[in-house]
Protein backbone atom coordinates (compact mmCIF):
# COMPACT_ATOMS: atom_id res chain seq x y z
CA UNK A 1 0.00 0.00 0.00
CA UNK A 2 1.62 3.24 -1.16
CA UNK A 3 1.58 6.13 1.24
CA UNK A 4 3.16 8.50 -1.25
CA UNK A 5 4.12 8.05 -4.88
CA UNK A 6 6.18 10.50 -6.90
CA UNK A 7 6.48 10.25 -10.66
CA UNK A 8 9.11 12.42 -12.33
CA UNK A 9 8.34 15.11 -9.77
CA UNK A 10 10.71 18.06 -9.62
CA UNK A 11 11.23 21.79 -9.45
CA UNK A 12 12.43 24.00 -12.31
CA UNK A 13 15.58 24.95 -10.43
CA UNK A 14 16.58 21.29 -9.93
CA UNK A 15 18.19 19.07 -12.52
CA UNK A 16 16.83 15.94 -10.77
CA UNK A 17 13.38 14.44 -11.27
CA UNK A 18 12.22 12.19 -8.45
CA UNK A 19 10.37 8.92 -8.89
CA UNK A 20 9.80 6.90 -5.77
CA UNK A 21 7.13 5.27 -3.65
CA UNK A 22 6.90 5.19 0.13
CA UNK A 23 4.96 2.28 1.50
CA UNK A 24 3.82 1.22 4.93
CA UNK A 25 6.77 0.14 7.11
CA UNK A 26 9.36 1.50 4.70
CA UNK A 27 12.63 2.87 6.03
CA UNK A 28 13.86 5.09 3.24
CA UNK A 29 17.26 6.75 3.40
CA UNK A 30 18.04 9.63 1.06
CA UNK A 31 21.62 10.76 0.69
CA UNK A 32 23.50 13.00 -1.68
CA UNK A 33 25.72 16.00 -1.99
CA UNK A 34 24.77 19.49 -0.89
CA UNK A 35 22.36 21.05 -3.37
CA UNK A 36 21.27 17.73 -4.81
CA UNK A 37 17.65 18.38 -3.80
CA UNK A 38 17.24 16.28 -0.64
CA UNK A 39 15.39 18.95 1.32
CA UNK A 40 13.30 19.96 -1.70
CA UNK A 41 12.26 16.32 -2.09
CA UNK A 42 11.25 16.18 1.58
CA UNK A 43 9.30 19.45 1.21
CA UNK A 44 7.38 17.98 -1.72
CA UNK A 45 6.65 14.79 0.22
CA UNK A 46 5.45 16.83 3.19
CA UNK A 47 3.23 18.90 0.90
CA UNK A 48 4.97 22.17 1.76
CA UNK A 49 5.82 22.83 -1.88
CA UNK A 50 4.28 21.58 -5.08
CA UNK A 51 6.30 20.12 -7.93
CA UNK A 52 6.58 22.24 -11.07
CA UNK A 53 6.74 19.08 -13.16
CA UNK A 54 5.58 15.50 -12.56
CA UNK A 55 2.98 14.26 -10.10
CA UNK A 56 2.64 13.32 -6.45
CA UNK A 57 -0.04 10.96 -5.24
CA UNK A 58 -0.53 11.06 -1.52
CA UNK A 59 -2.83 9.44 1.00
CA UNK A 60 -4.09 11.48 3.91
CA UNK A 61 -1.27 10.93 6.38
CA UNK A 62 -0.15 12.13 9.77
CA UNK A 63 3.52 13.00 9.35
CA UNK A 64 5.98 13.80 12.09
CA UNK A 65 8.64 16.16 10.80
CA UNK A 66 12.04 17.19 12.17
CA UNK A 67 13.53 19.99 10.05
CA UNK A 68 17.24 20.51 9.53
CA UNK A 69 17.17 23.73 11.54
CA UNK A 70 15.09 23.08 14.61
CA UNK A 71 13.39 26.20 15.98
CA UNK A 72 11.53 25.79 19.26
CA UNK A 73 9.87 28.41 21.46
CA UNK A 74 12.83 29.45 23.64
CA UNK A 75 11.44 30.34 27.06
CA UNK A 76 9.47 27.20 27.89
CA UNK A 77 10.78 24.45 30.21
CA UNK A 78 11.47 21.24 28.29
CA UNK A 79 8.94 19.17 30.25
CA UNK A 80 6.21 21.77 29.81
CA UNK A 81 6.86 21.91 26.07
CA UNK A 82 6.78 18.14 25.70
CA UNK A 83 3.59 17.85 27.74
CA UNK A 84 1.97 20.56 25.60
CA UNK A 85 2.93 18.74 22.41
CA UNK A 86 1.65 15.45 23.84
CA UNK A 87 -1.61 17.15 24.76
CA UNK A 88 -2.23 18.67 21.35
CA UNK A 89 -1.36 15.39 19.62
CA UNK A 90 -3.53 13.49 22.13
CA UNK A 91 -0.68 11.24 23.22
CA UNK A 92 1.45 10.59 26.29
CA UNK A 93 5.20 10.92 26.80
CA UNK A 94 7.19 7.83 25.90
CA UNK A 95 9.30 7.14 29.03
CA UNK A 96 11.66 4.86 27.07
CA UNK A 97 12.45 7.62 24.62
CA UNK A 98 12.87 10.23 27.36
CA UNK A 99 15.34 8.10 29.30
CA UNK A 100 17.24 7.01 26.18
CA UNK A 101 17.77 10.56 24.99
CA UNK A 102 18.79 11.82 28.43
CA UNK A 103 17.29 15.31 28.36
CA UNK A 104 17.51 17.92 31.12
CA UNK A 105 13.74 18.17 31.58
CA UNK A 106 13.75 20.98 34.14
CA UNK A 107 15.75 23.42 31.99
CA UNK A 108 14.32 26.02 29.69
CA UNK A 109 14.69 25.32 25.94
CA UNK A 110 16.92 28.34 25.32
CA UNK A 111 19.45 26.92 27.80
CA UNK A 112 19.89 23.73 25.76
CA UNK A 113 22.48 22.94 23.11
CA UNK A 114 21.55 22.46 19.44
CA UNK A 115 21.86 18.69 19.86
CA UNK A 116 19.46 18.62 22.80
CA UNK A 117 16.96 20.78 20.92
CA UNK A 118 17.25 18.31 18.05
CA UNK A 119 16.33 15.52 20.47
CA UNK A 120 13.27 17.44 21.71
CA UNK A 121 12.14 17.93 18.11
CA UNK A 122 12.57 14.20 17.51
CA UNK A 123 10.51 13.28 20.59
CA UNK A 124 7.70 15.66 19.58
CA UNK A 125 7.73 14.38 15.98
CA UNK A 126 7.28 10.81 17.25
CA UNK A 127 4.26 11.80 19.36
CA UNK A 128 0.72 11.11 18.17
CA UNK A 129 1.57 7.90 16.31
CA UNK A 130 2.44 9.43 12.92
CA UNK A 131 2.18 7.19 9.86
CA UNK A 132 5.42 8.59 8.48
CA UNK A 133 8.39 10.20 10.22
CA UNK A 134 10.31 12.62 8.01
CA UNK A 135 13.73 13.59 9.33
CA UNK A 136 16.05 16.07 7.68
CA UNK A 137 19.63 15.53 8.88
CA UNK A 138 18.58 14.09 12.27
CA UNK A 139 22.18 13.35 13.29
CA UNK A 140 23.65 16.79 12.77
CA UNK A 141 24.83 18.36 16.02
CA UNK A 142 24.80 15.08 17.95
CA UNK A 143 27.80 13.33 19.47
CA UNK A 144 28.77 9.76 18.53
CA UNK A 145 26.97 8.08 21.40
CA UNK A 146 23.81 10.06 20.79
CA UNK A 147 23.90 9.32 17.05
CA UNK A 148 23.81 5.61 17.93
CA UNK A 149 20.92 6.22 20.33
CA UNK A 150 18.92 8.08 17.68
CA UNK A 151 19.49 5.33 15.11
CA UNK A 152 18.36 2.75 17.71
CA UNK A 153 15.24 4.79 18.52
CA UNK A 154 14.34 5.09 14.86
CA UNK A 155 14.87 1.36 14.46
CA UNK A 156 12.50 0.75 17.38
CA UNK A 157 9.90 3.12 15.87
CA UNK A 158 10.21 1.30 12.57
CA UNK A 159 9.58 -2.04 14.30
CA UNK A 160 6.52 -0.50 15.94
CA UNK A 161 5.07 0.09 12.45
CA UNK A 162 6.01 3.67 11.60
CA UNK A 163 7.41 4.38 8.14
CA UNK A 164 10.56 6.44 8.24
CA UNK A 165 12.17 8.76 5.75
CA UNK A 166 15.63 10.10 6.56
CA UNK A 167 17.70 12.56 4.59
CA UNK A 168 21.31 12.37 5.71
CA UNK A 169 24.97 12.84 4.87
CA UNK A 170 25.76 9.73 6.88
CA UNK A 171 23.70 7.00 5.15
CA UNK A 172 26.03 4.23 6.37
CA UNK A 173 24.60 4.64 9.88
CA UNK A 174 21.14 3.65 8.68
CA UNK A 175 21.92 1.10 6.00
CA UNK A 176 21.49 -1.89 8.34
CA UNK A 177 17.88 -0.89 9.04
CA UNK A 178 16.95 0.79 5.75
CA UNK A 179 14.59 -0.97 3.34
CA UNK A 180 15.39 1.48 0.52
CA UNK A 181 18.28 3.80 -0.19
CA UNK A 182 18.01 6.65 -2.67
CA UNK A 183 21.25 8.32 -3.63
CA UNK A 184 20.83 11.64 -5.43
Amino acid at each position, binding site marked *: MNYIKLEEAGKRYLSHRFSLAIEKQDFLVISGENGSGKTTLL*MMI*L*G*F*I*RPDVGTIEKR*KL*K*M*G*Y*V*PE*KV*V*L*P*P*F*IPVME*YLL*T*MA*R*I*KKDTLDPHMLSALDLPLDKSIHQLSKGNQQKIALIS*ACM*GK*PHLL*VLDEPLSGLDEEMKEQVVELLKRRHHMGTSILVSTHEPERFLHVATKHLRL
Partner: protein
Amino acid sequence: MMILFEKIVFSPKKRVVFSILMASMMSVMIIIPLRASAWDPSYADLTLISDQKMIAHLLSLIMVFLTTWIVMDLEHPLIVTLNAYFGFWRIHLSKLIFLLMWIVMLYLPLSLIQNGIILFLTGRMPTIDVFNIALHDIFDAFLISTFAHPLAKSKHPSLALLFPILYTILRTITSNDFSMKLYTIFPAFQQEIIHYELAIAYKLCYISLGLLLISHFLKRRPPF
Protein backbone atom coordinates in the same frame (compact mmCIF):
# COMPACT_ATOMS: atom_id res chain seq x y z
CA MET B 1 -3.52 23.80 19.61
CA MET B 2 -4.44 27.15 21.18
CA ILE B 3 -2.20 26.38 24.17
CA LEU B 4 0.83 26.02 21.93
CA PHE B 5 -0.04 29.17 19.97
CA GLU B 6 -0.38 31.04 23.25
CA LYS B 7 3.02 29.83 24.47
CA ILE B 8 4.66 30.91 21.21
CA VAL B 9 2.91 34.25 20.75
CA PHE B 10 2.91 35.38 24.38
CA SER B 11 6.45 34.66 25.45
CA PRO B 12 7.54 36.28 28.75
CA LYS B 13 9.16 39.27 26.96
CA LYS B 14 6.09 39.91 24.88
CA ARG B 15 3.86 39.62 27.91
CA VAL B 16 5.79 42.51 29.46
CA VAL B 17 5.34 44.62 26.30
CA PHE B 18 1.63 43.77 26.14
CA SER B 19 1.17 44.63 29.82
CA ILE B 20 2.95 47.98 29.42
CA LEU B 21 0.77 48.83 26.42
CA MET B 22 -2.38 47.87 28.29
CA ALA B 23 -1.35 49.83 31.38
CA SER B 24 -0.54 52.91 29.28
CA MET B 25 -3.90 52.74 27.54
CA MET B 26 -5.71 52.43 30.85
CA SER B 27 -3.83 55.43 32.29
CA VAL B 28 -4.82 57.53 29.28
CA MET B 29 -8.40 56.37 29.71
CA ILE B 30 -8.46 57.44 33.35
CA ILE B 31 -6.72 60.78 32.85
CA ILE B 32 -8.81 61.99 29.92
CA PRO B 33 -12.29 61.87 31.51
CA LEU B 34 -10.91 63.46 34.68
CA ARG B 35 -9.48 66.31 32.62
CA ALA B 36 -12.82 66.73 30.83
CA SER B 37 -14.81 66.89 34.06
CA ALA B 38 -12.59 69.70 35.32
CA TRP B 39 -13.65 71.94 32.45
CA ASP B 40 -16.43 74.44 32.47
CA PRO B 41 -19.58 72.23 32.60
CA SER B 42 -20.97 73.83 29.45
CA TYR B 43 -17.96 72.63 27.43
CA ALA B 44 -17.35 69.38 29.28
CA ASP B 45 -19.62 67.31 27.03
CA LEU B 46 -17.97 68.54 23.85
CA THR B 47 -14.50 67.92 25.25
CA LEU B 48 -15.56 64.48 26.37
CA ILE B 49 -16.84 63.56 22.89
CA SER B 50 -13.62 64.64 21.19
CA ASP B 51 -11.51 62.91 23.83
CA GLN B 52 -13.49 59.69 23.53
CA LYS B 53 -12.98 59.78 19.76
CA MET B 54 -9.28 60.30 20.32
CA ILE B 55 -9.07 57.29 22.66
CA ALA B 56 -11.06 55.15 20.24
CA HIS B 57 -8.68 56.22 17.47
CA LEU B 58 -5.62 55.36 19.56
CA LEU B 59 -7.15 52.04 20.58
CA SER B 60 -7.83 51.03 16.99
CA LEU B 61 -4.24 51.83 15.96
CA ILE B 62 -2.80 49.79 18.83
CA MET B 63 -5.13 46.92 18.00
CA VAL B 64 -4.01 46.81 14.38
CA PHE B 65 -0.34 46.65 15.41
CA LEU B 66 -0.96 44.01 18.07
CA THR B 67 -2.92 41.76 15.74
CA THR B 68 -0.30 42.05 12.97
CA TRP B 69 2.29 41.14 15.57
CA ILE B 70 0.28 38.05 16.54
CA VAL B 71 -0.09 37.09 12.86
CA MET B 72 3.70 37.35 12.39
CA ASP B 73 4.33 35.18 15.44
CA LEU B 74 1.88 32.57 14.21
CA GLU B 75 4.30 31.93 11.33
CA HIS B 76 6.77 30.41 13.82
CA PRO B 77 8.67 27.52 12.15
CA LEU B 78 7.40 25.12 14.82
CA ILE B 79 3.79 25.81 13.87
CA VAL B 80 4.74 25.41 10.21
CA THR B 81 6.17 21.93 10.89
CA LEU B 82 2.89 20.95 12.55
CA ASN B 83 1.21 21.35 9.15
CA ALA B 84 2.73 17.97 8.29
CA TYR B 85 0.87 16.30 11.16
CA PHE B 86 -2.44 18.14 11.35
CA GLY B 87 -2.78 19.33 7.75
CA PHE B 88 -2.70 22.87 6.41
CA TRP B 89 -6.36 23.66 6.75
CA ARG B 90 -6.69 22.58 10.37
CA ILE B 91 -3.66 24.65 11.37
CA HIS B 92 -4.89 27.59 9.33
CA LEU B 93 -8.37 27.45 10.84
CA SER B 94 -6.91 27.23 14.35
CA LYS B 95 -4.79 30.30 13.62
CA LEU B 96 -7.84 32.23 12.45
CA ILE B 97 -9.82 31.28 15.54
CA PHE B 98 -6.86 32.16 17.78
CA LEU B 99 -6.45 35.53 16.10
CA LEU B 100 -10.13 36.40 16.27
CA MET B 101 -10.29 35.27 19.90
CA TRP B 102 -7.35 37.47 20.89
CA ILE B 103 -8.55 40.52 18.93
CA VAL B 104 -11.80 40.36 20.87
CA MET B 105 -10.09 39.51 24.17
CA LEU B 106 -7.70 42.45 23.90
CA TYR B 107 -10.17 44.96 22.54
CA LEU B 108 -13.32 44.37 24.54
CA PRO B 109 -11.90 44.81 28.06
CA LEU B 110 -10.18 48.05 27.03
CA SER B 111 -13.31 49.32 25.37
CA LEU B 112 -15.48 48.36 28.37
CA ILE B 113 -13.01 49.89 30.82
CA GLN B 114 -12.88 53.07 28.76
CA ASN B 115 -16.62 53.53 28.92
CA GLY B 116 -16.95 52.25 32.48
CA ILE B 117 -14.39 54.79 33.63
CA ILE B 118 -16.22 57.64 31.88
CA LEU B 119 -19.45 56.63 33.58
CA PHE B 120 -17.77 56.17 36.97
CA LEU B 121 -15.61 59.30 36.98
CA THR B 122 -17.84 61.81 35.24
CA GLY B 123 -21.28 60.40 35.92
CA ARG B 124 -22.07 60.76 32.18
CA MET B 125 -23.03 58.01 29.78
CA PRO B 126 -20.55 57.53 26.91
CA THR B 127 -21.68 59.80 24.12
CA ILE B 128 -20.26 57.95 21.11
CA ASP B 129 -21.62 54.76 19.57
CA VAL B 130 -19.29 52.45 21.46
CA PHE B 131 -20.60 49.14 20.18
CA ASN B 132 -20.51 50.17 16.53
CA ILE B 133 -16.99 51.60 16.84
CA ALA B 134 -15.81 48.43 18.60
CA LEU B 135 -17.28 46.28 15.83
CA HIS B 136 -15.58 48.34 13.11
CA ASP B 137 -12.25 48.40 14.95
CA ILE B 138 -12.28 44.63 15.46
CA PHE B 139 -13.07 44.13 11.77
CA ASP B 140 -10.35 46.63 10.81
CA ALA B 141 -7.77 44.76 12.89
CA PHE B 142 -8.85 41.47 11.36
CA LEU B 143 -8.86 42.93 7.84
CA ILE B 144 -5.40 44.48 8.11
CA SER B 145 -3.89 41.34 9.65
CA THR B 146 -5.51 39.16 6.96
CA PHE B 147 -3.81 41.17 4.23
CA ALA B 148 -0.55 41.35 6.18
CA HIS B 149 -0.50 37.55 6.54
CA PRO B 150 0.99 36.67 3.10
CA LEU B 151 3.83 39.10 3.83
CA ALA B 152 4.36 37.54 7.28
CA LYS B 153 4.87 34.23 5.45
CA SER B 154 7.40 35.71 3.03
CA LYS B 155 11.18 35.73 3.40
CA HIS B 156 10.95 39.18 5.00
CA PRO B 157 8.16 38.88 7.56
CA SER B 158 8.73 42.36 8.98
CA LEU B 159 7.29 43.71 5.72
CA ALA B 160 3.91 42.73 7.19
CA LEU B 161 4.21 45.78 9.44
CA LEU B 162 3.78 47.97 6.34
CA PHE B 163 0.03 47.40 6.53
CA PRO B 164 -0.48 48.74 10.07
CA ILE B 165 1.94 51.59 9.36
CA LEU B 166 -0.02 52.53 6.25
CA TYR B 167 -3.23 52.20 8.23
CA THR B 168 -1.90 54.57 10.89
CA ILE B 169 -0.77 57.14 8.34
CA LEU B 170 -3.97 57.07 6.33
CA ARG B 171 -6.19 57.08 9.35
CA THR B 172 -4.32 59.92 11.02
CA ILE B 173 -3.57 62.36 8.24
CA THR B 174 -6.27 61.98 5.60
CA SER B 175 -9.30 64.21 5.50
CA ASN B 176 -12.75 62.72 5.87
CA ASP B 177 -13.63 63.18 2.20
CA PHE B 178 -10.45 61.57 0.99
CA SER B 179 -10.63 58.65 3.41
CA MET B 180 -14.25 58.08 2.38
CA LYS B 181 -13.03 57.66 -1.22
CA LEU B 182 -10.23 55.40 0.00
CA TYR B 183 -12.81 53.32 1.83
CA THR B 184 -14.28 52.18 -1.49
CA ILE B 185 -10.84 50.86 -2.51
CA PHE B 186 -9.90 49.40 0.88
CA PRO B 187 -12.55 49.45 3.62
CA ALA B 188 -10.56 50.66 6.61
CA PHE B 189 -9.28 54.01 7.91
CA GLN B 190 -12.69 55.69 8.17
CA GLN B 191 -14.46 56.41 11.45
CA GLU B 192 -17.49 58.19 9.98
CA ILE B 193 -18.38 55.08 7.99
CA ILE B 194 -20.01 53.57 11.08
CA HIS B 195 -23.19 55.44 10.16
CA TYR B 196 -23.58 53.42 6.95
CA GLU B 197 -25.45 50.13 7.26
CA LEU B 198 -23.58 48.32 4.48
CA ALA B 199 -20.12 49.24 5.77
CA ILE B 200 -19.69 46.03 7.78
CA ALA B 201 -20.87 43.87 4.88
CA TYR B 202 -18.36 45.63 2.62
CA LYS B 203 -15.58 44.95 5.14
CA LEU B 204 -16.62 41.30 5.36
CA CYS B 205 -16.30 41.00 1.57
CA TYR B 206 -12.74 42.31 1.79
CA ILE B 207 -11.90 39.96 4.67
CA SER B 208 -13.15 37.06 2.54
CA LEU B 209 -10.97 38.33 -0.30
CA GLY B 210 -7.99 38.39 2.07
CA LEU B 211 -8.70 34.85 3.20
CA LEU B 212 -8.88 33.72 -0.42
CA LEU B 213 -5.50 35.35 -1.02
CA ILE B 214 -4.07 33.44 1.95
CA SER B 215 -5.41 30.15 0.64
CA HIS B 216 -3.78 30.97 -2.71
CA PHE B 217 -0.46 31.63 -0.98
CA LEU B 218 -0.83 28.50 1.14
CA LYS B 219 -0.92 26.42 -2.01
CA ARG B 220 1.98 28.06 -3.75
CA ARG B 221 4.50 29.42 -1.30
CA PRO B 222 7.05 27.30 0.55
CA PRO B 223 6.67 27.71 4.31
CA PHE B 224 10.31 28.51 5.09
